[in-house]
């Protein structure tokens, strides 16, 4: 990732649902709250496609339905606190994930690559639109050939482990 001499970076990062879940008090083995602190401290602009907020809430409800989350009221409060943090603090920027240009990219990704998951296509399109690196833990997305499909895919797709090395956090 390109870093300027002043230690700041002009790089932009689009994050995936896994990387915002700790804000809503759900962690994954790949990305927990300690990782969230590191990500926030990284000097890159961090974008959250708006549609991921829906996906994150789906995850929360699903975990509650399956009994993994036992107290739904607590989960709803934690989600709202997290959303307030995301919306009003400046650690991340929530960006539209369905403006006409992004929508067009999303459709082209669907036609060219047949990716069935709408959210996957949307975050790819958002990352391409903002000329950003996509941060994801999704193995299918990580294995995409970005060079062959450079017209519709972001230049770089990395997971948290690789990004930490790029940012010299590891």
């Amino acid at each position, binding site marked *: 990732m390109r870093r300027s001499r002043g230690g700041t970076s002009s790089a932009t990062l689009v994050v995936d*649902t*896994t990387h915002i*879940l*700790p*804000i809503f*008090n*759900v*962690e*994954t*083995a*790949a*990305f*927990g*709250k300690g990782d*969230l*602190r590191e990500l*926030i401290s990284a000097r890159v602009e961090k974008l959250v496609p708006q549609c991921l907020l829906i*996906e994150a809430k*789906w*995850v929360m409800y*699903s*975990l509650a339905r399956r009994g*993994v*989350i036992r*107290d739904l009221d*607590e*989960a709803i409060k*934690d989600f709202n*606190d*997290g959303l*307030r*943090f995301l919306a*009003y*603090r400046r*650690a991340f920027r929530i960006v539209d994930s369905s403006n006409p240009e992004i929508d067009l990219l999303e459709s082209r990704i669907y036609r060219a690559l047949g990716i*069935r*998951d*709408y*959210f996957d296509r949307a975050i790819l399109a958002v990352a391409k639109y903002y000329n950003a690196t996509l941060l994801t*833990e*999704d193995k299918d997305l990580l294995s995409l050939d970005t060079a062959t499909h450079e017209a519709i895919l972001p230049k770089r797709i990395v997971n948290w482990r690789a990004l930490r090395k790029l940012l010299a956090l590891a």
Partner: protein
Amino acid sequence: METVMRGYVGKKGEIYVEKRARELVNLRPGDDLVVLVRGDELVIRRVPRLEDILRKRALAVISAEEVERISEEEQGRYK
């Protein structure tokens, strides 16, 4: 439960709230607030700090693959 406490509006329009009320909702100098106007009422909410988020014990710890699986299941409901 509602707790009634006093506050007042200063000469320049600043709103002062009783110390105990601030303590009850953990308001500290420099906090960001969201103010909602509901009819003739003001609702003041504190914007959580990163520390507030990090301090909480996680509701669940799952795998990244599980996140994908849940999303695909949910999307399947609308196909």
